[in-house]
């Protein structure tokens, strides 16, 4: 790696570098992995949305995607498996002026953490959830996830997966999310735009990113490498903004519907809490912005 760094021209810097903890690079992700692509999009979305970076906090769970928090030069929290959303809930409620982003994987957010996701969506808590869906448990070596499509091979489904998979966008939609979109790592511009939009949107926002795991998912399912997956995403994806989320199921080699499916305005958790309490308690209600202790 040091040889590679030596040939890098110190005069040329990547515009996303100020957003990264460069002292932690190289990262742990495999060649062809899509997570780095999404981080690139996210940093560009931070630039585009002009948010105050000191007021952005990023919360991750466990897994390959859970490592995102550690590479971003923001207030960042790498929490326990499945619990990024409830951690983010406490963080947001104690400090509502923070823009809280949960950045994690499909297994973390929808298997072990699935309960928290639907409840945060139900409450319309003002957090942004970015879910990297690589259809598998990658950090632990390629086991079945609740997103693994039928017939796909995993280490714990060596004869092919026979469990029905979750449709993540439908779940987020039906639980009450204010914003639901899906892109693949091929759609970097659209993804950046969605990320930029949610940074400015109030309420529970959910973005699913279909992302390759060449090491474990694509290889085991004979789908080629990272580049092959980009071609596959290009060929199989169909943009259908506003499509009913019930029609977004992912199959092993079928169409991948992408786009923005939900963008609605509902009062968020804090608005509901404040309006109810001030209505009931009148002058006795002490409304606070940040719960900063001494």
């Amino acid at each position, binding site marked *: 790696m040091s040889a590679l760094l030596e040939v890098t021209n110190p005069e040329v810097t990547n515009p996303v570098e100020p957003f990264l903890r460069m002292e932690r690079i190289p990262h742990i992700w495999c060649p062809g992995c899509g997570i780095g692509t999404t981080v690139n999009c996210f940093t560009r979305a931070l630039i585009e949305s002009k948010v105050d970076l000191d007021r952005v906090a990023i919360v991750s769970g466990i897994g390959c995607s859970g490592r995102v928090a550690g590479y971003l030069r923001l207030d960042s929290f*790498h929490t326990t498996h499945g619990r990024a959303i*409830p*951690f983010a809930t*406490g963080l*947001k*409620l*104690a400090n509502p002026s*923070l823009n809280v982003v949960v950045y994690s994987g499909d297994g973390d957010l929808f298997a072990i953490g699935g*309960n928290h996701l639907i409840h945060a969506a139900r409450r319309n808590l003002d957090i942004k959830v970015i879910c990297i869906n690589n259809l598998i448990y990658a950090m632990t070596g390629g086991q079945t996830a609740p997103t693994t499509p039928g017939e796909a091979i995993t280490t714990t489904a060596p004869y092919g997966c026979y469990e029905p998979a979750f449709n993540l966008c439908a779940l987020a939609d039906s639980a009450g999310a204010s914003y639901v979109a899906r892109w693949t790592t091929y759609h970097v511009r659209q993804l950046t735009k969605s990320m930029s939009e949610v940074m400015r949107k109030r309420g529970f926002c959910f973005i699913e990113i279909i992302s390759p795991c060449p090491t474990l998912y694509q290889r085991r399912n004979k789908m080629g490498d990272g580049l092959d997956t980009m071609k596959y995403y290009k060929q199989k994806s169909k943009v259908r903004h506003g499509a009913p989320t019930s029609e977004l199921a992912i199959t092993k080699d079928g169409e991948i519907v992408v786009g923005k499916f939900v963008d609605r305005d509902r009062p968020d958790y804090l608005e509901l809490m404040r309006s109810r309490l001030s209505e009931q308690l009148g002058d006795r209600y002490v409304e606070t912005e940040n719960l900063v*202790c001494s």
Partner: protein
Amino acid sequence: MQADPRGVLTGVHFIDGDHACCEGALAAGARFAAGYPITPSTEVVERFAARIPTVGGTFIQMEDELAASIAILGAVWGGAKAFTVTSGPGFSLMMEHIGFAAMTETPCVFVNVQRGGPSTGLPTLPAQADMMQARWGSHGDYEIIALSPNSPQECFDLTIKAFNLAEQYRTPVMFMMDECVGHMTEKVVIPRPEDIEIYPRRLTRKPPSEYKPYEPAEDLVPEMAHAGNGYRFHVTGLTHDERGYPAMNAATQDRLVRRLKEKIRAAEDRLTFVDEDGVEDAQVIVVSYGITSRVAERAIEMARQKGVKTGRCRLIGIWPFPEKRIRALAQRARAFVVPEINLGQIAREVERAAGGHARTISVTHAGGGVHRPEDIFEAIMEAAR
């Protein structure tokens, strides 16, 4: 510093231990609580839910105890003082986040109003059988602070102490009540805010460029920063270096885990909280805590009437275990009698600390009620023989 008057309900009250615990948390400055209903602890958060909107803060009922126990940690990093409240089964679910709080040095309080276990056990009846779980429940090596009140007044006073210790040592503190103390109604005197001492959060004054989130101060405790203040710090449950960055190697693990243990172990003298009476020339010393200490009081009286010099050593701080104190007492007394509503958890600690210098007699109770004073009395008489 002094307590924020908004949270202090100064006056004389007739309330139960659960309610007193809530008032203690408010007086200590807790402005965020997350909970999940579970008997016999729910009254604490019920009161908090009713009180907090008029004090300034937030209560949220989460979807389960896993969520409640990490929501409070998020709130702490967001700037609040925070706590959660539970009982047996919920406490089991919270273990991972007690470890996460210990590892990330997040000051917070976990209240456990103990009921009979294992499993669903006796939801409405008392036990003291989570004492070892409070110490060892999460995986890996860490040290913990645990307090045990024996009255509603102490539920108030010691909840404040629990928050103060959490801040001072940057550690989760276990507040180990039991169903009896939680549901017992007595007089509780809440002092004026200026008479309540509060340990402030150890926030760094360094500029972000010089700040290292896990660089220990002299007492081995690092300074904290809150999210949103420009520090751009990283917090992880992974083994981390002084910058807070993951470092997967034995040397970093050794340095971190030993420091987490040592910052509390080294403070054992300052963390020894006992209430003693007549131990100086005692033949037998009754070591007890929580509701059992009040039953033991009657047994001690009975034994003294029979001419047995009986001392009382009531443990207010359970963890770190007051080893030095017990070892010193073991040099004088013939025996320790340790009644507790479990099958001998703290008795084993007493025996270990006594190091063979005094006998330890465990007086067990499987839970669902309290001891009969006679059972403890008989153990004292046996010990004196």
